[in-house]
């Protein structure tokens, strides 16, 4: 009986590790190719897009990159401002809105939630044009706020926070704070937010990544070179199909992905430990 169990466990481990290692390879491969291509010349890439062996054109790619309208420092600062502010807005206000939906009984609660869900379902292609026209009319093109402020109302994030709060926010704790005479806003900031920290970190990763990579709206809203984000700069490199410098494009992509890498691995502690919910023990 015991032996049987042991062999079962060995079998489980063999299967699990094989699957995981396969998935690890699949996950890392594109990054490896991207970084390798950043060191290859355009013509090498054109004739053989995938290679695992780095080449020696990194310096020349850097020179090409800097010779174009590509200023990594500026792009990095702009992208960071937009993505960091968007992320902060998203997680804080989504948590606040979700808290309103979970912790209080108000008449319009479920209509409001239904409404938030509905907003999430509208395909973005047409409404993004309406958004652009509106921004152009009120003169908010080339203004980071046009990209940051709207993230205060992020339906998907509210939905996410709400589901986590429903599952794991102990409302007794809120009750207890009230009895202690704490204000509602104070309770939210000092008691609810810390409990939600792991969920917020998860959401922070998701929204930072999507904001950092987002291209279409920034591309049409931010048209002055001093406002460009990293992805805009990369897309400009690809703009002229007749003479695209692929080596420089990959270098640009690699430079774009590096900062998210760092942010991601920093926040990943929450993924590793699991976003342990119900922070209060017992």
């Amino acid at each position, binding site marked *: 009986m015991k032996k049987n169990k042991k062999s079962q466990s060995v079998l489980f481990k063999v299967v*699990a590790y094989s699957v995981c290692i396969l998935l690890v390879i699949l996950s890392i491969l594109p990054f490896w190719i991207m970084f390798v291509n950043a060191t290859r010349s355009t013509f090498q890439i054109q004739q053989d897009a995938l290679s695992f062996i780095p080449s020696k054109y990194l310096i020349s790619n850097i020179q090409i990159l800097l010779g174009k309208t590509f200023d990594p420092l500026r792009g990095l600062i702009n992208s960071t401002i937009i993505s960091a502010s968007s992320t902060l807005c998203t997680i804080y206000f989504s948590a606040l809105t979700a808290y*309103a939906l979970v912790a209080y009984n108000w008449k319009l609660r479920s209509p409001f939630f239904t409404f938030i869900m509905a*907003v999430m*379902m509208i395909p973005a*292609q047409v409404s993004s044009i309406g958004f652009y026209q509106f921004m152009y009319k009120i003169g908010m093109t080339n203004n980071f706020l046009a990209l940051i402020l709207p993230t205060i109302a992020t339906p998907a994030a509210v939905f996410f926070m709400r589901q986590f709060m429903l*599952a794991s926010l102990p409302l007794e704790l809120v009750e207890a704070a009230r009895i202690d005479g704490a204000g509602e806003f104070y309770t939210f900031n000092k008691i609810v937010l810390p409990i939600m920290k792991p969920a917020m970190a998860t959401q922070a990763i*998701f929204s930072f990544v999507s904001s950092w990579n987002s291209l279409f709206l920034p591309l049409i809203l931010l048209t002055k070179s001093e406002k460009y984000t990293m992805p805009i700069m990369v897309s400009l490199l690809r703009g002229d199909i007749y003479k695209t410098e692929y080596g420089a494009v990959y270098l640009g992509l690699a430079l774009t992905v590096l900062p998210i*890498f760092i942010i991601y691995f920093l926040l990943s502690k929450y*993924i590793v430990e699991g976003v342990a*919910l119900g922070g209060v023990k017992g």
Partner: protein
Amino acid sequence: MKRKKGVSYAKYGYIFSIPFAVIFLIFSLYPILYTALLGFTDFKGLGTKSWHFLDNPFQNFILILNNDSFRQSLSNTFIIWTANFIPQILLALVLTAWFTSRRNKLKGKGLFKVIFYLPNIITAASIAILFYSLFGYPVGPVNSLLIKLGLIDTPVYFLINKATARGIVAFIQFWMWYGYTMIILVSGVLGISPDIYEAAEIDGTTGLQAFWYITLPNLKTILLYVLITSMIGGLNMYDIPKMFMQGGPDNATLTTSVFIYNQAFSGSYLYNRAAAASMIMFLIIAFFSAILFYLLRDKDAIERRKENKRMRKAYKERQEAEKL
């Protein structure tokens, strides 16, 4: 006394929703109303200044519903979404079970979890280009590999085959999103109180039983989130199908979102038809979301709500009685 307080807190529900509501009214309401209205008008073409509501307000909707490419895109979207979502959620659930298993502790599971999310942080455009070169014809890595292994003699033109093209798009979506789904599920599982598992273990439940009877039911709210967002994301799938093969070959990977984009921007600027198609998609997504909400509804919560309502009513009645 206590109950009275409970009622007065309702105003905070409104107060805390203000930032969301205000920002929404400023930034999103106009574009959404604009989209909803355009569908009923004759607004098309570039630089058009004036537009009118159509005599038959549903003309655009009828045109779209009778549009062969739209129908094709609708079925493509469903095929590609199903083909990516079912394996995706299954793999995510399996990984979740492995990584949260109390019996079999996998070494390095933290690292695995972190790495599996990585495909999600590269931009869709780069991934589309990568896969396009992978399946290159007549020379490409997949073709050379298959020839080396002796599985084929002459190179295969993968991307001219509709099923293959759809399959690759579905695979890319699967590969980009299973890690995301898994992370959310894992965090949901870790939110379940360990006491329940401990009790189950004492009763002699196996790992599989525990997953089936404890984990899954307790994961309901999170699962609802995963299902709804995957569905919305899947039915609005745009980046990969657009950038991988522009909806080709022969419309095989044309999704509804790519169709909508093409209506609006591929030459004729049919904003009105694009808007009508958007609204049709919205209704379809809303319909399926409603079904999911219904299926995964929290029966206890509904009970609680009913209870609340009863109490409030009783409270009101009592107040009125007091007044008298």
